[in-house]
């Protein structure tokens, strides 16, 4: 019975991890959930797995997209509704590999309109842009 409950909990967290949007997130959270499960008692394992399932939608939103040049910024068709249609971006500050600050949308990778003119210019960065 204990083994069956533990097996069910492991299967559930593996299934939840498969619902995450990127390959790296799937691999990371599968390993993380399984490691967390290993620290719990049998009854707590199932409660944990159900909690992970309940939180899946929130985790999908919170996990950052894979950022390779092929996948980021997201192609227009894959952008969330708020970005693609409503043009309501979630601006955040980021840095290039050589330390140049810029602003991009955390959801789709769109560059802030002012960033495009600022990168490479001598105009000081103003973090109050929203």
């Amino acid at each position, binding site marked *: 019975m204990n083994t069956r409950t533990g097996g069910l909990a492991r299967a559930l967290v593996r299934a939840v991890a498969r619902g995450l949007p990127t390959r790296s997130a799937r691999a990371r959270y599968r390993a993380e959930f399984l490691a967390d499960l290993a620290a719990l008692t049998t009854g707590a394992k199932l409660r944990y797995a159900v909690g992970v*399932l309940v939180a899946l939608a929130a985790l999908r939103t919170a996990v*950052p997209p894979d950022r390779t040049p092929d996948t980021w910024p997201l192609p227009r068709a894959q952008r969330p509704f708020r970005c693609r249609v409503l043009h309501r971006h979630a601006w955040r500050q980021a840095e290039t590999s050589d330390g140049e600050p810029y602003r991009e949308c955390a959801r789709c990778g769109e560059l802030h309109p002012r960033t495009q003119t600022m990168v490479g210019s001598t105009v000081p960065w103003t973090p109050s842009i929203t």
Partner: protein
Amino acid sequence: MPPRMTIPTQRVLAALLDEPERELYGIEIGERAELRSGTVHPILARLEGTGWLASRWEDVDPQAEGRPARRYYRLTADGVVAARTALERAWRPSAARRARPALGEA
């Protein structure tokens, strides 16, 4: 962009600020924050996305330990400052609430 300061987010930050130099894994954070088991990861992911939190895999041999390596979380130096400020702001009563007379006062 700072994270939304929901009650669960405040509890997670308060739990991490108890011992900011100590690394904790998901279950420990959930227990300290008194959140429902398994529901802490979206909050941790958001905090990590804003740079307030850093995480790393535990450096152990799973064969020797008899369990998988855990993912440990800890507030960054910037995160400690930002989290303290955000919690102070979140716990401070709004001007409207401060101005409201207490029961029996008016």
